[in-house]
C-alpha cells in the first residue's frame, strides 16, 4: 500500500475514531484526578479525616424500629439501614408490579369506566413528584390514623394507629434452622413430584397438573414438619400494649408512607409499560386465540401476557432500579433507610465525604444485584431464535 494514497491522518476515519476516544478518555481521567486531588489537598489542609476508620467507631445514635444499640459501630448502623432499604424496596417491587399490571390491563379494558379510571390513576400519579407523594402520604394519611389509645381494628387481627399498622404474621419459636431445613426438603420433594408428573404425562398423556401437585406436596411436607418439630411456627396477632402496637408484623407510619407512595407512583409507570407491551403483541395473536374459542381470560393469560412479558422485562427492570433508589426519599419522613442512617451518622461525627462514598457504593451494589436478577429473567424469557 502506497503511503501517498492514504488520506492524511486527520481525515483518516480510523485515526479520527481513535483520537476522539482517546481525547475523551484523557479529559475524563484528568477531571477525575483533579477532583480527587483537590479533595485530598483540602481535606489534609483542614485536617478532616479522609479514611474509612470511622466505620468501626461507635455510632452513638439509636435507630427507631430496630434493636440497634448506641454502642454498636457505624457499619452495623449502615447494615440496619440497608435492611430497611431492602424491606421497603422488595415490598414495593412486589406490590407495584401487582397493582401496575392490573391497572395496565384495566387501561385496555373495553369497559369505559374501568379504562378511564385507570387512565386517571396513571396520569395523576405519573405526573406528580414522588417527594410530594411521600410527604403527602405521611402527613395526610399515616399521621391521620387514630391515636394509639383509640386504635382502629378495621378487621379482626388488624390494628391501625398513628404508632403503627399491625397485620397478622407468623412467629418462629426457637431456632429457625430446622424450619428452614423442612422448607428446603418440601421444595426438593415438590421438584421431584413435578418430574414424576411430567414423566407420567409423557408416558400416558394424562394431564400433569404440576402446579397443584407441587403445592400439595409443599403443604403436606410443611404440615408433617410442623407436627414433628412440635409446632415451631405459630400465628401472631398484633395488639395495642400501652403506648405501642406489638405482635404480628407492625409497620411504622413512616414506612407505611414511603411504601404507599413508592408503590402507587411506580405502579403508574409499570401500568404504562404493561399497556405498551400488551399493545406491542401482534394483533393477530389475539385474533388467533379468539378463533380457537379461548375465553377473554384465557386469551390474556395463555397468549397475550406471556408474549407481553418478554417485551416488558427490560423496562420493568429499570422501574425496579428506580424504586430501589427512590426509597432514599424515606429521608423526608424519617424512615430509617440507608440514606437516612448515613445522614444521622454524619451528624454524629462521621466524616461526610467518605460516608457518602460508602453509601454510593452500597446503592451501586443493590442496583447491580437487581440488574443481574432481571437480566437472568430476561434471558429465560427471551424468544429462542433458530
Amino acid at each position, binding site marked *: 500500500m502506497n*503511503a501517498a494514497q492514504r488520506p*492524511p*491522518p*486527520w*481525515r483518516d476515519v*480510523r*485515526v479520527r475514531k*481513535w*483520537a476522539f476516544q*482517546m*481525547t475523551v478518555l*484523557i479529559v475524563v*481521567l*484528568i477531571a477525575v*484526578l*483533579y477532583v480527587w*486531588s483537590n479533595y485530598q*489537598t*483540602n*481535606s489534609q*489542609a*483542614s*485536617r*478532616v*479525616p479522609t479514611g474509612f476508620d*470511622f466505620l468501626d467507631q461507635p455510632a*452513638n*445514635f*439509636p435507630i*427507631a*424500629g430496630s434493636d440497634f444499640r*448506641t454502642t454498636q459501630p457505624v457499619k452495623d448502623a449502615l447494615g440496619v439501614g440497608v435492611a430497611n432499604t431492602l424491606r421497603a424496596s422488595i415490598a414495593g417491587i412486589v406490590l407495584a408490579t401487582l397493582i401496575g399490571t392490573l391497572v395496565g390491563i384495566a387501561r385496555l379494558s373495553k369497559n369505559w369506566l374501568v379504562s378511564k379510571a385507570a387512565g386517571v390513576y396513571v396520569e395523576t400519579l405519573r405526573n406528580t413528584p414522588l417527594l410530594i407523594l411521600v410527604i403527602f402520604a405521611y*402527613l395526610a394519611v399515616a*399521621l*391521620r390514623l387514630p*391515636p*394509639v389509645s383509640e386504635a382502629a381494628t378495621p378487621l379482626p387481627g388488624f390494628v391501625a394507629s*398513628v*404508632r403503627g399498622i399491625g397485620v397478622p404474621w407468623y412467629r418462629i419459636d426457637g431456632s429457625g434452622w430446622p424450619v428452614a431445613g423442612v422448607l428446603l426438603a418440601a421444595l426438593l420433594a415438590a421438584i421431584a413430584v413435578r418430574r414424576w408428573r411430567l414423566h407420567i404425562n409423557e408416558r400416558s398423556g394424562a394431564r400433569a397438573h404440576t402446579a397443584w401437585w407441587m403445592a400439595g406436596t409443599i403443604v403436606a411436607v410443611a404440615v408433617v414438619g410442623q407436627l414433628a418439630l412440635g409446632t415451631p411456627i405459630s400465628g401472631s396477632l398484633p395488639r395495642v400494649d*400501652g*403506648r*405501642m402496637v406489638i405482635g404480628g408484623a407492625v409497620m411504622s*407510619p*413512616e414506612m407505611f408512607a414511603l411504601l404507599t407512595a413508592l408503590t402507587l407512583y411506580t405502579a403508574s409507570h409499570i401500568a404504562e409499560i404493561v399497556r405498551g407491551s400488551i399493545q406491542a403483541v401482534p394483533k393477530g395473536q389475539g385474533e388467533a386465540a379468539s378463533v380457537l374459542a379461548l375465553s377473554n381470560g384465557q386469551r390474556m393469560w395463555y397468549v397475550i401476557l406471556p408474549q407481553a412479558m418478554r417485551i416488558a422485562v427490560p423496562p420493568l427492570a429499570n422501574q425496579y432500579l428506580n424504586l430501589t433508589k427512590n426509597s432514599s426519599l424515606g*429521608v*423526608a*419522613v*424519617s424512615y430509617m433507610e440507608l440514606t*437516612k442512617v448515613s*445522614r*444521622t451518622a*454524619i*451528624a*454524629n*461525627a*462521621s*466524616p*461526610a465525604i467518605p460516608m457518602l462514598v460508602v453509601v454510593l457504593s452500597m446503592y451501586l451494589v443493590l442496583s447491580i444485584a437487581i440488574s443481574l436478577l432481571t437480566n437472568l429473567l430476561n434471558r429465560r424469557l427471551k424468544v429462542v431464535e433458530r
Partner: protein
Amino acid sequence: MFDGQRWAAVRAAACLLKGSAMKYKSNHVRWLALLGALLLMLAACGSDDSDASDDSSADVTSGDSTDGEGASGDSNGGSDGNVLAGVQDAGVVRCGTRDALPGFSVLEDDGSHVGFDADFCRVIAAAVLGDAEAVEFVDLETEARFTALQSGEIDVLVRNTTWTASRDGVEAATFLQPNFYDGQGMMVATDSGIEDLDGLAGAVVCVAAGTTTEGNVANEFARLGLDAPEIQSFEDTDLIQEAFQQGRCDGWSSDVSQLASLRSDYPDGPDALTILDVVFSKEPLAPAVLDGDSEWAQVVNWAIFATIQAEEFGITKANVDDFLDSDDPSVMIFLGQAGEDGAVVDPGLGLPVDFAYQVVAQVGNYGEIFDAHLAPLGIERGLNQLWSDGGLLYSPPYR
C-alpha cells in the same frame, strides 16, 4: 480534492502529529505515534497541575506568616488562608446560622435576621469591620453546617452548635467561648400526665435528626436503667411538631432553650406542653471556626468576650458613650480609648483598638442580647449569668 489550501491552518496545527506520522510506513507505528503524542499531552497537563498546586501552597505560606501555622490553613475557599485578612478584604463576615430557630435566628418578612445567634454574628462583624450589619447570613441545615465550614463557604458558624470532642476533632472545627450554656430536656403534652422520665419508659420520643440529641436520650434511659423508648428522629422541626400533635410520640426532646422556643410557638398554645424538670446533658453552644487559623479564632473569641465584659462593667448600648471618659483605666483600655497620657493600649489581636466599643454601641452587651431574644421565650438566665452572679460567664481581662 479537499487536500491542500483549505486545510493549511489545520495542517500547521497538527504539524507535530503529521510529521511523526508521515515518517512511518506502518499503520501500527502511526497509531503508536498518535498515542505517544497524546500521552505527552497528558504528562504535560499533569505537570501543569502539580505546578499550580505548588504555587498555591507557596502563597499560603507567605500569606499565613502572622500566626506561624504555615501551610495548614489554606482551605478558606480561595482566599489565602488568612481568614481575618479575607474578611477585611471582602468587607463582610460570612456567618453560618439557621433561619428557623425562634429566639436564635429567624428570617423576618423584611429579610432581616433576628435572634441571639444572629446578634452574635453582628458582634463579630462589629468587632472586625466596625459595622454590625456587614454580615452575610448563610442558612444552614444541621447536616450541612460543618461541611460549609470545611469548604470555606462561611467564616464562622454561630448556629446552636454543641461543643463536643468528636466535632472538635473529626469535623476539624475549633470551638470558641460558648455563648449559651444549654442542656437537653424533655417536653410532653400537659394532658398526658407524664411527670418524669420514668413515665416515658417504653414510649416514643421524637427528636430532631442530625444532632447529639438521639444518643443522649438513649444513654440517659440506659443510665437510669429504664426501658429504652423508641427514638424517632425527624429531619425538621415542623415535621416533629405535626407528628407530636397527631400523637406519634409521647416525648419531645431537645435542648431546653429549643423546647422553650418551640413551646412558645405551639399551635395549641404553650400551656398544652410541659417541659419536664430534668436536664440530662451538657450542651455548651459555641461558635466554631475552621482549624488552622488561630488568629481568626482569637478574634472571634475576644469579640464574644467583649459582650460579657461589657455586662460586667455595666456598660450597655445606651450608656456606652458615658463611659468614653471613664475614670476607670480598665474600662478605658476595654473601650480602646486613650488614657490620661494619650496612649491607647492595642492588645495586638489584629482588630481595631476600639472593637469592644463598636460591639457594645452597635449590638449591646450579653445581657441585652439575651433579654431581647431569649427572655421573651421564657428562658431563664440560669448558667448564663455572669460568674459574679453565680453563672458561668467569665471573660479574661482586657489588658
